[in-house]
């Protein structure tokens, strides 16, 4: 199969491609969400045992870990598109980065919020200035800063480039968040947050957690593509293809 991928770097081509993909991603999101939530609520243990005897509230893990993963992953993807935009001056790459930011910010907020509600019963506090919690909060501010900077500059091309640079600088936070609990010597990681180790998680819990993560990922595609389509229409409002599209819609 020979696909010309660069064809989709043009806004009109990507606009129609995204339009066809969005329903697929919504379908995948809902399917995975139903499976993940069902498995998380009905196929997993009611109470944890061993050295971590948490009660029902441990189920926050299915939302918390999945959204925390997405918050870091989406930031990375956003920076990749921002860098491609800066190097190749491609319009669509900048729009891609801008379209990802709100979804990333939502997942970061969700990770912090569910973390607070999990921290209260298990640790005994909603918030503490622990390295993991603090670095995740900084990531949230990076997303907000990116969105704010972009909307503060009127000229779209300048706004794209300035906020892309800010996003690239903020990439420094992603490895810090990761290693804030996963440093090689556990005695050096003075933290309240536990380390992450997928091998110490029961199979059913892990399955629900990974399914929820996939659901959130598919949601990210759906939400980003919808935002991207409206961005394309706004930015290309004066172009011939958008006018033709609008007249076609008008005639139907």
């Amino acid at each position, binding site marked *: 199969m020979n696909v010309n991928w660069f064809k989709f770097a043009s806004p009109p081509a990507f606009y129609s491609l995204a339009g066809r993909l969005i329903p697929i991603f919504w379908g995948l999101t809902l399917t995975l969400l139903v499976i993940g939530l069902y498995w998380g609520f009905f196929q997993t243990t009611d109470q944890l*045992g061993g050295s971590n005897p948490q009660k029902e509230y*441990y189920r926050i893990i299915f939302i918390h870990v999945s959204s925390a993963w997405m918050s870091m992953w989406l930031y990375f993807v956003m920076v990749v598109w921002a860098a491609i935009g800066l190097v190749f001056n491609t319009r669509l790459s900048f729009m891609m980065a801008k379209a990802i930011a709100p979804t990333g910010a939502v997942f970061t907020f969700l990770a912090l919020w569910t973390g607070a509600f999990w921290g209260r019963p*298990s640790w005994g506090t909603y918030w503490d200035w622990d390295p993991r919690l603090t670095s995740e909060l900084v990531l949230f501010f990076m997303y907000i800063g990116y969105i704010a900077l972009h909307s503060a500059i009127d000229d779209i091309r300048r706004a794209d480039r300035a906020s892309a640079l800010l996003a690239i600088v903020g990439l420094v936070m992603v490895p810090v968040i990761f290693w804030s609990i996963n440093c090689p010597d556990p005695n050096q990681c003075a933290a309240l947050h536990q380390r992450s180790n997928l091998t110490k998680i029961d199979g059913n819990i892990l399955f629900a957690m990974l399914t929820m993560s996939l659901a959130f990922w598919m949601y990210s595609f759906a939400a980003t593509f919808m935002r991207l389509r409206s961005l394309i229409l706004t930015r290309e409002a004066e172009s011939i293809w958008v006018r033709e599209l609008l007249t076609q819609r008008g005639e139907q």
Partner: protein
Amino acid sequence: MKARQKRLVFIGLAIIGIGAASTLAITALNSNISYFFSPSQVLANEAPPNHVFRLGGLVTKGSLIRESDSLKIHFDVTDNAKTVKVIYTGILPDLFSEGKGVVTKGKLGADGVFYAEEVLAKHDEEYVPPEVASTLKTAHAEGVTNTATTSNGASN
């Protein structure tokens, strides 16, 4: 060099710079002693005197005493080398228990006792049902030959 290649080099350098900054930040976090102090550090006078700081470690087994007429609680925090006595008045978090990790915030008294204002429980990254955990623990602690005789006492 074309303009595009220049930008590519620029972004490449920027990302290398950010990698360096990340490494520095992680190194700083690794040698971070300000989140909490271990009992050994406290007894070596590394913790700030007359200031609120966090003391972290394990609750010594058998050290927990609840006063019968108040919410006052006594326990020891250890790092398996040194031990600091802690006094706290209040309600302990759900996961607080002897032998488990704890982070307490408070001041060190002149009597060498740590007066905690806040006690937080640490838990590890093991998420398994109780049955699985007890079998693992039995096999690990007692050895496989003894599992049959100790299976009753393993669930706690």
